């Protein structure tokens, strides 16, 4: 549950940071996509070990 909360907070933090830096919403979506894949890949690597 804590991991889920941390993940949700992290995604919102990244979205807010991108908006503050005047990054367009479309690029924000692309960044979110990359973060999702990277996070799942990292989690898979951890569970694999």
């Amino acid at each position, binding site marked *: 549950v804590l991991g889920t909360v941390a993940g949700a907070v992290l995604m919102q933090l990244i979205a807010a940071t991108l908006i503050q830096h005047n990054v*367009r*919403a*479309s*690029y*924000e*979506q*692309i960044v*979110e*996509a*990359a973060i*999702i*894949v990277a996070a*799942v*890949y990292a989690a*898979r690597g951890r569970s694999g070990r």
Partner: protein
Amino acid sequence: MSSSLAPGTASVEPDTGSERASLRSSRRGERVFALAQQQGGLITLVIVFLGACIFSGGFASTDNFNSILVGNAYTSLLALGMTFVIISGGIDLSVGSVFALGGVLAGWGTLHGGTAVAIVLPLAVGLGIGLVQGMLIAYARLAPFIVTLAGLLFARGVLQAMTNEGSQTNHVPPHSSFLALGNGTWGPVLTAVVLFVLGAVLLQRTRFGQALFAVGGNENAALLMGLPVARTKVLVYVLSGVLACGAGMLNASRLEAGITNIGVGYELAAIAAVVIGGTLLTGGAGSITGTASGVLLLAVIQNLIGVHLSKYGSSASDLVNGLFLAVVVLLQTLITRRRRLL
């Protein structure tokens, strides 16, 4: 089993007979359940279609049939690609966004490079997206749900970036030969029919199709059999990506523009059509004819709702589709459990 014992033993014969009868009955039951699972969509389609022709005034008209067929010709290609993905045991949530991206790329292509660019660019991008998703799923062993969810966000983000956050529409020039691709009534329908036939041949008559069923049925067993599991999975997502982007491109030709806000929720409609058509969400079983039945069934229901329940808007259509899907999944689960017991 006692049926394998030597005949002539008085105490065994009645048992043998009853066991044979029970075996025959269980085989009959298995055949009925298999038929219900594989052809349930088609049977329901025939019943709903006949009911609509008899009870719904205006349904059985050439214009209405044309409208149903043309309106669903290109979106049915998403379900075609999804059938392969679901049989492999995966899911592709990106097809709706990739469909929209295909249209936007085609519109952009006609403005910046001509018809050839408008055709090749969406197909190449669809192939690229499918290839990346497939490799992440097959080689990096990431969950298809997450990878294609990221693909959904990526494709939607790219098309928004290309169209100034969706505020700009790429209209196909009126003189462009690209418009010939999607115009008319029978062009889109024939394109869809030809692709469905090719899809059925690919699934039923090729080594790839057989490998796909094996991978979806039991991936570990397929690996032990020496089948190219990873390559099969990558090809499935490539196929889905190319079909989705290609369908978007053809749709842009019909609409004469690359519409940015199109395709939202199309992935769910495609999944619904595939599941209603008898393809198991768990993979390993399914057919292209079943998917065609599922697409047509949803289209007929949507048409009937449009005629009779238009005052309730699109929410009525979503409600009926949802209920229908819930019933189908419930029946699939019951049939699968029953077949295991038989």
